[in-house]
């Protein structure tokens, strides 16, 4: 792939570019006329939101959204689907809303990016762009666990991309024998939705309480600690019983969480026997195994040469790729620290990038970058918890605003947690309306 940075780009533009745009204008602005063509790759949380806000803020731009699937199922609330509390239909969306807003939605797979020629290569040809935004989500990295592969997910569903995997895991959970064992094996950091596996365990307990009261849930974690750990433990204890153990695990009547160094870290998987092997050599056979592989940026990022040594895309404060600063990368694929890989983060980044693009097209300064994240999780259908952070750029760095955000727990009333559960549903409505119009 042909990667260029801004300096090379300036060279390529040569005398003609310099003469027409004037010395003070950067090439990015030069190509981004008020009615330029913005191509967004990936119609998920980041991409759909970005396209939607571009139609609002850059009304003269032509916006093309390239998404391989004709429908998108949100990962958010897919744990409810897995545990039989919501339907697949209720988390699945089409692109008519965006089309009505004037977005040119193309269902195709991007197989390459020619950053020099400013076009993306698709299954059926190529599409030229003035500005490119990538929000392709994640790809699984099977290199660190023996036996791990995309095929294994047909036996041991990860359900970490919502769709057929969600339905498969839901079917396995519903059909699990009485008193059976569900193993959930989350990967090391960083990964999509850090609280997701622990919400999934809690909702599994809620489901089993009703349908399979002697079932057991074991979380074999690659990590030493996890997201919202204090609030999850408090919630698990209050709703399902159990407590932290002296070795630093968590143990309840139907739930165990085993930390990495206590034999939680999975190093080998065998789909044929539904078995995972941990670092200490122990074999764990489950009735249902939800093995969640390690993750890296969506494959197209690597193919385009945009990833760092760990497989993710480094970006600057505007979320322009550090490899090619005329390409924006948002969502899970980007290294957005301190923002986590969440839908809310992707949405926040998408709007800021839409603002940057709209402002540059209009020859204006964008308002100062402002970011936010909230991850709501359910302990039960009536017990919600959340983590909040507001972000700003300070002294050339993206930082959390001090004194804001955090997790509300430690003895908060059940009424508080009932409200969080109620508002989590509102959040879902909000974020999806921002995506699909």
């Amino acid at each position, binding site marked *: 792939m042909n990667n260029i940075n801004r300096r090379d780009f300036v060279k390529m533009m040569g005398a003609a570019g310099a003469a027409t745009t004037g010395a003070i204008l950067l090439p990015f602005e030069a190509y981004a006329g008020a009615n330029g063509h913005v191509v967004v790759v990936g119609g998920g949380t980041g991409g759909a939101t970005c396209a939607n806000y571009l139609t609002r803020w850059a009304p003269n731009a032509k916006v093309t959204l390239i998404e391989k699937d004709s429908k998108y199922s949100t990962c958010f609330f897919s744990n409810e689907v897995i545990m039989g509390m919501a339907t697949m239909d209720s988390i699945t969306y089409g692109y008519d809303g965006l089309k009505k807003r004037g977005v040119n939605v193309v269902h195709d797979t991007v197989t390459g990016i020619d950053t020099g020629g400013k076009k993306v290569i698709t299954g059926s040809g190529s599409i030229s762009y003035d500005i490119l935004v990538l929000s392709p989500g994640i790809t699984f990295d099977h290199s660190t666990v023996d036996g791990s592969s995309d095929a294994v997910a047909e036996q041991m569903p990860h359900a970490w991309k919502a769709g057929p995997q969600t339905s498969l895991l839901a079917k396995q959970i519903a059909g699990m024998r009485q008193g059976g064992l569900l193993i959930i094996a989350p990967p090391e950091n960083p990964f999509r939705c850090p609280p997701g596996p622990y919400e999934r365990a809690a909702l599994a307990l809620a489901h089993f309480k009703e349908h399979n009261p002697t079932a057991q849930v074991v979380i074999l974690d690659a990590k030493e600690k996890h997201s919202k750990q204090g609030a999850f433990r408090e919630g698990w204890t209050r709703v399902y019983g159990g407590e932290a153990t002296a070795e630093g695990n968590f143990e309840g009547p139907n739930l165990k969480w085993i930390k990495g160094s206590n034999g939680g870290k999975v190093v080998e998987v065998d789909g044929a026997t539904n078995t995972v092997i941990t670092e200490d050599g122990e074999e764990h056979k489950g009735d249902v195994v939800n093995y969640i592989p390690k993750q890296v940026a969506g494959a197209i990022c690597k193919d385009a040469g945009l990833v760092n040594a760990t497989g993710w895309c480094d970006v600057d404060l505007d979320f322009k790729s550090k490899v090619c600063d005329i390409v924006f990368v948002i969502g899970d694929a980007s290294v957005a620290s301190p923002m986590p890989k969440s839908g809310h983060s992707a949405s926040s980044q998408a709007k800021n990038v839409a603002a940057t693009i709209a402002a540059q097209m209009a020859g204006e300064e964008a308002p100062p970058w402002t970011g936010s994240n909230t991850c709501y999780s359910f302990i039960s259908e009536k017990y919600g918890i959340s983590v909040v952070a507001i972000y700003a750029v300070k002294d050339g760095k993206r930082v959390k605003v001090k004194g804001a*955000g955090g997790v509300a727990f430690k003895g908060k009333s059940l009424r508080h947690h009932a409200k969080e559960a109620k508002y989590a549903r509102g959040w879902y409505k909000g974020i999806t*309306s921002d995506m699909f119009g």
Partner: protein
Amino acid sequence: MPKTKQIAATVVAVSLIGSLAVASGVQAAGLSLGALVASQCNTCHGTDGEGAQSVPRLAGLDADEIFESMKAFASGEDTASIMDRVAKGYSDEQLHAVANYYSEQ
């Protein structure tokens, strides 16, 4: 995609004429500070603050009321399940801007 290519080519040609957009003062609709801050609230409150199921509507509320609400959430004077943690993250300038923005929706 011959059609797309053609459009893109035209765009490049037009934009190469130079900083026409700047000179003609093309405005990006809604690119105020308030609109960008509001976009961060919309994730919960719905696009344009129209309300999202259980999360209240902000569009059309009085600007002073929104601003005072935010200050009361931040100080703890008003209890909240989440807005206390949100409100503390914004400056008065941002809060005035977002309050004005929603009051005009």
